[in-house]
């Protein structure tokens, strides 16, 4: 894959790197704190869930070089289990989200250990096929409600105490979850473990020859990515009070790829920007119906041919900083 060349690799002071990321982070937090007073909180919460989903996906494609085309599996199934736990078992929202997340982690472990048995393009096809299989299970299983999905999921009381019915209260919780997930991914990327992942991305054979058990690293990264996608899906089910087949079907897997690609593969802020861009676009273009699909396709083609660094990647490249 054509890599975004790290402009700082040539021995410039690393202070600049941490600074640009810190400044970017502060801008993002400030924007997310102000935003609910300017626009719809419900839309923003949904966007943050998708942003976390895209960040989780980016952990695989951007830092290990693995293109999973089946991330709807983890997002969608976490969403189902979280909705079911909140509605039918009456669990509190934090436990419901944990249930969904654990489901995604287990699915990630099983699917990941199968998919990493093949390389490159086959990896993508296997993840897609497994996700499609789990889509059919969701379609046939009783508890998912088939075409109806699980509707009217109660938001409940956080820790049994705080009522989440109010959108602003819910917003604070979603913001906290998003920032925690984002921070966790940032930590993974900059840890020694993350450095090994990047080494695998650049040259897997070489990483193996240096004694790293790359399969274990890949599996670990896969499970982490699936789990975080699960957090996003589970939270989304509580926020929108709905889990449906849309979340688990293949176009959802494509959408998260598109978000990450638009924002910038392998950049920290790219998936967040991409998720917001794509959701705003869908929101604005909803009246024109099926043309949205065509426009998404055109964006895919344009990104791949002209714009491989994505929005954030291009900015970082122009300013010669890392974002």
């Amino acid at each position, binding site marked *: 894959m*054509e890599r975004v060349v790290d402009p700082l690799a040539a021995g410039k002071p690393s202070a600049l790197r941490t600074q640009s990321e810190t400044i970017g982070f502060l801008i993002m937090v400030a924007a997310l704190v102000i935003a609910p007073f300017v626009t719809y909180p419900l839309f923003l919460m949904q966007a943050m869930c998708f942003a976390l989903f895209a960040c989780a996906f980016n952990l695989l494609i951007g830092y290990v070089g693995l293109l999973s085309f089946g991330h709807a599996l983890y997002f969608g199934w976490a969403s189902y289990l979280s909705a079911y736990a909140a509605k039918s078992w009456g669990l509190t929202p934090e436990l419901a989200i944990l249930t969904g997340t654990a489901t995604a982690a287990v699915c990630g472990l099983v699917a990941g250990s199968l998919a990493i048995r093949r390389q490159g393009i086959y990896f993508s096809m296997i993840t897609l096929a497994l996700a499609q299989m789990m889509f059919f299970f969701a379609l046939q299983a009783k508890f998912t409600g088939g075409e109806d999905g699980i509707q009217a999921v109660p938001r409940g009381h956080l820790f049994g105490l705080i009522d989440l019915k109010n959108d602003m209260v819910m917003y604070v919780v979603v913001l906290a979850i998003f920032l925690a997930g984002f921070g966790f991914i940032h930590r993974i990327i900059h840890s020694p473990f993350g450095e090994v992942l990047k080494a695998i991305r650049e040259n897997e054979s070489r990483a193996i020859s240096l004694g790293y058990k790359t399969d274990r690293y890949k599996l670990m990264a896969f499970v982490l990515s699936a789990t975080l996608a699960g957090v996003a899906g589970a939270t989304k089910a509580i926020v929108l009070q709905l889990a449906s087949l849309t979340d688990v079907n293949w176009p959802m897997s494509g959408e998260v790829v598109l978000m990450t690609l638009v924002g910038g593969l392998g950049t920290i802020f790219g998936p967040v920007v991409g998720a917001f861009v794509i959701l705003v676009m869908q929101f604005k273009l909803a009246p024109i119906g099926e043309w949205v699909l065509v426009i998404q396709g055109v964006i895919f083609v344009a990104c791949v041919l002209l714009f491989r660094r994505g929005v954030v990647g291009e900015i970082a490249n122009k300013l010669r900083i890392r974002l």
Partner: protein
Amino acid sequence: MFEIFGIPSQALFGQLLIGLINGSFYALLSLGLAVIFGMLNIINFSHGAQYMMGAFAAYLILLYTGLGYWPALIIAPVLVGITGIIVERLFLQWLYKLDHLYGLLLTFGLALIFEGVARNYFGSAGLPYTVPESLQGGRNLGFMFLPNYRAWVIAASLGVCIATWFVIERTRLGAYLRAATENPTLVRAFGINVPRMITLTYGFGVALAAFAGVMAAPIYNVSPQMGSELIIVVFAVVVIGGMGSILGAIITGFGLGVIEGLTKVFFPEASNTVIFVIMAIVLLVRPAGLFGRRA
């Protein structure tokens, strides 16, 4: 009528026949994917959409020119193949030096465009396409009723598959193709126009998908989303068979179609997922695929 394992023979052989029909499409499509991947190093995600385009081309040819099934069987693949050549020249040729993943992403985008345009003009409901007059009716084989058209589909796709295998494995042109797959630079040095060969290979693979689409039109309805779910199953077929061998793709395609048909008889709930389950098992037992070579 008689029974096998408590299943009426009519039902069993009926599903077996449907399995063989599905298998024909799996074989034709996975063959096209393998041929394209061999030359272009790109997994053609728009393959399903191009199959759909073949069916729509047949439908539109009938609507606007009145030409029926038999002319459409030739014209539609040629037309769709030409769009494939345009796609290769406009888009794909810039990707060969990049990672495989970009080819997958770009063709996925193309699939969305094709499907979206079709949905805009024709809606999501299926459009009917009638069986050609010469193939209407069927014959009673004693243990089952065999519609003529279905027999034709199986025979025709088997024929096309074998012809493709023959051209690639046994002719001079096929030898060039295989050589260019192994080492394009060296083949170019011998004075063979490899870029043109790549373009035509893509056009041919796409035409193969469109051919399958025309044959599918009278069996399934012609609808914009007919390709997108099929292509995911075909991906699983390709993972099971491995793309190293042409004959492997054909055998895997037909075999999995039959297994899927039998599952419909004995365990209908699993018929949607059986191919994916087989894929998982094959990955556990033979990670390189049944006919694959270890990379």
